[in-house]
């Protein structure tokens, strides 16, 4: 693979090429002689977020222009702020920041507390979205029998979502009342 000609830090021509192995992954960094990034990288200083973003972010124009359809946030924006735009960004842009997450944390899979009702609800909403898409394509393909089956399942799911909302309201009342 050809070495990038532009510095990862400031877009000047590169003169220094580093690779670093973190958690069995190779991160390549190409920087210029007088880059502000150079000092940060060469000093093995304490954990700094922006450095790691810069090292770990895959540098391709395609990924930088990736957009979260929920909130319009881009990966380029993430590189600037180090913060995501909305929870759904993790679904749509998540694959690009995986190396950062791996680098930062001891694991990549949640091992702690889970919210009970919210999680059920999120699952039902996801299922609903999937069914609606299926319904649309069934209608487009004029597969009306199939569409009818999907419609029934959507109706069942709506009932499920409603009863979950009630359950939630009740448990909230119960707790604050008692």
């Amino acid at each position: 693979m050809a070495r990038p000609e532009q510095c990862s830090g400031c877009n000047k021509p590169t003169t220094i090429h580093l690779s670093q192995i973190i958690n069995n992954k190779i991160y390549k960094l190409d920087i210029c002689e007088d880059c502000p990034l150079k000092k940060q990288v060469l000093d093995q200083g304490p954990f700094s977020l922006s450095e790691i973003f810069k090292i770990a972010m895959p540098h391709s124009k395609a990924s930088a222009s990736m957009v979260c359809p929920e909130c319009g946030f881009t990966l380029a924006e993430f590189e600037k702020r180090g913060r995501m735009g909305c929870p759904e960004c993790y679904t749509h842009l998540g694959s690009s920041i995986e190396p950062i997450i791996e680098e930062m944390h001891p694991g990549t899979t949640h091992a702690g507390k889970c919210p009970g009702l919210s999680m059920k609800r999120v699952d039902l909403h996801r299922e609903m979205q999937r069914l609606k898409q299926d319904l649309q394509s069934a209608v487009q393909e004029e597969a009306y029998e199939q569409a009818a089956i999907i419609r029934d399942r959507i109706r069942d799911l709506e009932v499920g979502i409603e009863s979950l909302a009630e359950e939630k309201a009740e448990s909230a009342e119960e707790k604050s009342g008692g």
Partner: protein
Amino acid sequence: MSIEWLVMQQGERKGLESPSYPVLLMSRIRLARNLAGYSFPGWAKPAQRQAVYDTCKEAVAAVPQMSSSAHFEVGGLNDMEKQLLVEKHLISKELCESRGSSGVTIAQGQLMAVMINEEDHLRIQVMRPDLDFDALWSDSSALDDELEKRLDYAFSPELGYLTACPTNLGTALRASAMLHLPALVLDKQMEKVVRAMNQIGIVARGLFGEASDPSGSVFQISNQQTLGESETVIIRRIEDVIRVVISHEWKARIRLFQGNAVKMFDRIGRAYGILRGGHLITSSEAMNLLSMMRLASDVHMLPVQVRDSVDRLIMEMQPAHLQIGRGKSLAPGERDEMRADLMRRTFTEIPHPDPSKLSFVDSGVDTGTSADDVKPDEG
């Protein structure tokens, strides 16, 4: 609800709790939570921020833990009031600078607070004067459960609680303790301690003054990693580390007093002298002097109650506390004068540090005969 509520409750906060503890000033757990379907506060449009604020504020007010609480909208506070809340560790500087539609609900006793629209939609925090992360976790998790009944959290089975910053993913839990480590600083061991902590994902930073020269030797120690381990594992590790640091601090204290007792007595005596007789004291100088008084109290050269006074003074001598106490804003020079007055008034009531009372009984370290090397016989 007015800011006076907070000032008036100040005594109560201290009054409620058990006495202060050697080395430890405070421990805290913070949980970050966000609502599904809304942009994070830093990216949300004003209307969305407002919608999140209203929803969260209502939910927080409805939970039983907040049945007696006060809510402050940041936009409704002046700079001095905001600063007061920062000095009390109830809100962050980031919340002060937020773009509107943000606030904090503070429970009675000021040991529990929920920030709305800081970096995340919700920041739940619970504090204690002692070191008991199990209790902090159980209190913060119970508050979290109550909120979750009323709100739809953004959560993914893989990444856990979804947060604005990827550093908080997973448990979104930050456990921290404020430690007073004057002997490790004097003994020039802090750098080594900090480096060792960093290697296991725990960070330490000076709480007052500059990063390079933390005044008062007060450090905040907290976990950096949140994903891939359970809350219990995280808090167990940090509590273990904090206990080790506390025991290192005690060993360094014993070593310092053994190595050159007169030098330590002199440091403490001079600090006392300035606090009792000074007329102009900056906040950084005051932190360093009070640090010596806390140390003197930990080693029984001063009565243990002095430690409570020191902790109260650390809070009350800060700019916003001083100015709100006086009811007007003061120039820095005037503040230094008021601060010195406050110290003189307090220390007039406090006896001179007594080297003959030196004792490491609270250290939990077996000092054997060595402590007696510096401790005059009580006979």
